[in-house]
């Protein structure tokens, strides 16, 4: 399906996505029926729409929450890899919470590695990359961050987000040596 988007240049990923509705925030009063039944729509006196999750739905095994957003990472990453997209602009949202940086995602008992920006995208095409450092912290055998940045020769816009420094605890200092990144960026003329 993704291969049909022949002119796709920018790829955005909302990590830790809080489900509102499938219009991604285009909420109107008439959109209530589009919302997942385990949420209900609350509209205040100013017309602002808010989603309230039901604590427990009738199906006790079903929750509509984002603790398992690792699977979505996995699916989207594999789909992008299969489609062989030439992404020039890759951005992820930043999540302002303590938990996300240290929370390990599991699928079928195996940890999910946030490695796909490196492995699935053509580094030569990448010009803009705004990501959270967690993409590089949960990976054990991949290329260090500075090596990856060096490989992205056309990079013009780089933004790395660190959540309260907690991400750094789970990765070696060697992996995130900003001095080396900066030096290599200087040498590469970025």
């Amino acid at each position, binding site marked *: *399906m993704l291969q049909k988007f022949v002119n*796709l240049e920018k790829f*955005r990923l909302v990590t830790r996505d809080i489900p509102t509705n499938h219009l991604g925030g285009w909420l109107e009063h008439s959109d209530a029926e589009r919302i997942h039944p385990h949420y209900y729509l*609350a509209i205040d006196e100013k017309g602002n*729409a808010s989603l309230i999750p039901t604590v427990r739905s009738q199906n006790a095994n079903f929750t509509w929450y984002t603790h398992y957003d690792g699977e979505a990472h996995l699916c989207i990453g594999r789909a992008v890899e299969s489609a062989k997209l030439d992404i020039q602009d890759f951005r992820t949202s930043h999540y302002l919470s303590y938990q996300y940086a240290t929370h390990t995602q599991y699928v079928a008992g195996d940890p999910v590695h946030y490695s796909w920006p490196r492995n699935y995208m053509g580094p030569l095409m990448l010009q803009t990359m705004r990501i959270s450092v967690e993409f590089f912290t949960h990976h054990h055998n991949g290329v260090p961050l500075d090596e990856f940045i060096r490989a992205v020769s056309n990079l013009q816009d780089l933004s790395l987000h660190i959540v309260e420094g907690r991400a750094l605890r789970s990765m070696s200092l060697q992996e995130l040596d900003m001095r080396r990144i900066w030096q290599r960026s200087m040498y590469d003329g970025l």
Partner: protein
Amino acid sequence: MATQIVVSNAPPDTPLSVMDNTLLEIAAMITENLLEYDLAPTPNAKYSEQPTDKLKLAFDDEETLTWVTFSEESRNHILNAREASRKLFDSSFRAFAALLGDRRFRVTPVGFEDLEAISNNTALIPYITTLTFGCAALQDRGHHALSQDVESILAHLLLQDR
């Protein structure tokens, strides 16, 4: 009507209007100028990329987007323009595709259906340069069920590419 998404090649069933006599290039300029980034009205907003049109959520958690979205007014204007005139409809695919870049596609049946409908629209697909995916919305039924979900989702996503 304001936020209705019409993913179709068929022009709206409306009578000819004054705009239908406009040149296509000029009509395209009109629709593209309806695009307006949602930036806070501060002197340095274009540098800080601070949005104003932020949905109020009933959660304490907050997320920060690293991109600028289009304003709600521009969404309404473009969608209304597509309904108002056949010429504006025919000339609005670039602007409409830009709007769709803000939409979050989630790994859900509804998300897949919409993404597939857009991917099958030959008039729209050349202008799609941006896709936004949201990571919410997988069911939590234990690890075994989760692995099955992943495989079924992958099969669905890759089905069109085989």
